[in-house]
């Protein structure tokens, strides 16, 4: 079958992020001060174990970021027609899970459907019973309301969660770094202006600010619906907009930390000496301040990550999260939470979403602890 690769905006940003990380690692590979803390993280049992779990998640997320569309069968010589459905490498690997769709709910590994139906027997007599599944015993975690495999949905949700966690950081970092360090280093008017900016942003209740911005984006997407070729492209833009909004509203915490640190560093001897030698401000900022606040940046990034994954679920519940058509933990929970009222209870979809999210967030939290202990000598043994 012929395929054509598709590069969604988020895929491009992931590649950019990966490339940046790779370049940084390559440049710093000989630098002992850079390597020592990471060696410490990887040597601890907890650090290695959580890093392994996280890399499995990241691997799944990356596979799910290689998108393509299939070429529709057509007459030879005709111009190529492509399917409107954007698939990923993960979809290709999970094809049996993706296409083996049942009619509606079925419990994990069940052989029969969740709901009774009227069945016409071979002798023409109608009776009500649980109809057998089309693919009995293959759905490890059951199926959802429209019969999709829950394991497949859970694996697809991973990319959404990881994207929110990482792209938001990517967008937030430039704001936090420039504004935070500038406020602390230059002081005076610049400091006042930046402080005003983040107090104003901080004063707005977080969810409301995000909701307001997402509502606006939603209206813009609806009014310009013709710009998007596929549903995947539309939900991708909405996801990016959500990351951008979370990033633009979320830089204040780190900026405040960096401001305080820059305020302290600027009075230290090595910065004073650099200034006495006539080194320009730009150079002092880049060579003397930036490397000395990097540990704060790294610690904040890993700590924020887990919070963002959890936030996605809440925001999707409020109705200002990712596109309702996108597979995400939040949308999985949202779709299933009312089914607890049914008898017997439909628990597997909720359980799967919460479990996959829990493992990811727990690993991220424990990994963050290890990173903090390694990078921040003051925190050692504190938590």
């Amino acid at each position: 079958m012929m395929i054509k690769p598709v590069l969604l905006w988020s895929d491009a940003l992931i590649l950019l992020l990966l490339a940046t990380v790779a370049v940084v690692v390559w440049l710093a590979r000989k630098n002992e001060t850079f390597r020592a803390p990471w060696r410490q993280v990887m040597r601890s049992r907890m650090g290695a174990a959580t890093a392994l779990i996280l890399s499995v998640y990241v691997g799944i997320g990356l596979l799910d970021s290689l998108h393509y569309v299939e070429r529709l069968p057509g007459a030879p010589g005709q111009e190529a027609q492509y399917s409107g459905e954007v698939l990923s490498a993960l979809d290709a690997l999970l094809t049996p899970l993706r296409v083996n769709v049942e009619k509606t709910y079925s419990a994990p590994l069940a052989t029969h459907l969740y709901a009774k139906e009227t069945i016409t027997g071979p002798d023409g007599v109608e009776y009500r019973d649980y109809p057998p599944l089309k693919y009995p015993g293959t759905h490890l975690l059951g199926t959802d309301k429209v019969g999709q495999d829950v394991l497949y949905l859970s694996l697809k949700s991973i990319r959404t969660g990881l994207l929110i966690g990482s792209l938001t950081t990517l967008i937030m970092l430039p704001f936090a770094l420039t504004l935070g360090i500038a406020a602390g280093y230059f002081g005076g008017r610049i400091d006042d202006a930046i402080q005003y900016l983040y107090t104003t942003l901080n004063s707005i209740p977080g969810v409301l600010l995000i909701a307001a911005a997402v509502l606006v984006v939603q209206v813009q997407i609806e009014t310009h619906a013709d710009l998007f070729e596929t549903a995947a492209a539309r939900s991708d833009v909405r996801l990016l907009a959500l990351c951008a909004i979370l990033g633009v509203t979320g830089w204040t915490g780190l900026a405040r930390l960096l401001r305080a640190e820059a305020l302290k560093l600027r009075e230290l001897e090595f910065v004073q000496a650099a200034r006495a030698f006539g080194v320009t401000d730009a150079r002092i900022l880049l060579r003397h301040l930036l490397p000395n606040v990097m540990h704060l940046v790294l610690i904040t990034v890993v700590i924020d990550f887990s919070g963002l994954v959890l936030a996605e679920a809440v925001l999707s519940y409020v109705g200002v999260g990712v596109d309702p058509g996108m597979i995400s933990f939040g949308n999985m929970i949202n779709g299933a939470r009312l089914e607890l009222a049914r008898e017997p209870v439909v628990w597997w979809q909720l359980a799967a979403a919460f479990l996959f999210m829990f493992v990811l967030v727990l690993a991220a939290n424990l990994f963050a602890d290890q990173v903090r202990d390694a990078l921040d000598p003051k925190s050692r043994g504190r938590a």
Partner: protein
Amino acid sequence: MLNYLLRRVLYAIPILLGVNLLTFGLFFMVNTPDDMARIHLGAKHVTAEAIKRWKSEHGYDKPLFFNASAAGAEKVSDTLFVEKSLKLFVFDFGASDDGRDIAREIGQRMWPSLAIALPTFIVGLLAYVSFALWLVFFRGTALDTGGVILCVALMSISGLFYVIGGQYLMGKLWHWFPISGYQPGLDAWKFMVMPVLVSLIGGIGDSSRFYRALFIEEIGKDYVRTARAKGLSDLRVLFKHVLGNAMIPILTGVVVVIPRLFMGSLIIESFFGIPGLGSYTIDAIQAQDFAIVRSMVFLGSLLYIIGLVLTDISYTWADPRVRLE
């Protein structure tokens, strides 16, 4: 002190103005009133006249900042910015899209919000701090390690899980409390227990771990050794000296949220059907009622700034060395 308060009030004005400009920019300039009308009318009924009618019904048929057709001072005052944004400063919130007075709704709905948020806040603070002190008391033992692991595990669980799980267990399976709803008066407690319990459990991991870290840092200091050398009991050292000295960071995180308790919690209120400001906000977001969202943003910012001032005042109470000038 009075001087300080006056300065803080003056400082609040530019911040609130900034907040208003931001929401005004989002809701009137990025999104025009025409877009708003289109969303509310639905795709089928969009005609130029219908949009015009909707805008005039809801008072959106004015220029943004400058009304050339009006006379005198009305050139500036008869505009969307003054009508929809600046009037928030005098608590004139206007009407929501379904025509109800927003200020009155807020006045009614803040009490149920407070009925849930205040007990959650007080019991939560006491419980989290005590749990953290208890962990610190057993520091270095298996109890402490186990407690910290429990905290990390609890904070890694989505908040929605606690709500859904709590509702299922306490409401549906055990029939302890009604699953959702609210009733003013004496019977309110039946509806309050579950949301409060669920919020408490949801917050324990994060907060206790934070407080424990504060106390552990404090307990390594010299004055603690001195106190113990004087023969004071461990409990007295913990509750009097360590807690007292860790008060400033605790207050920093805690006092600022007190005024915002009025606004309730979006998730808790909407899941438990509490008719408070949280569910009001979430309904407004889902119905894309921008008038309510704008009012709540303004209210939230105002309460936050009040919280910041209260935080500063509370420092003088916790630490006599702090003077507000």
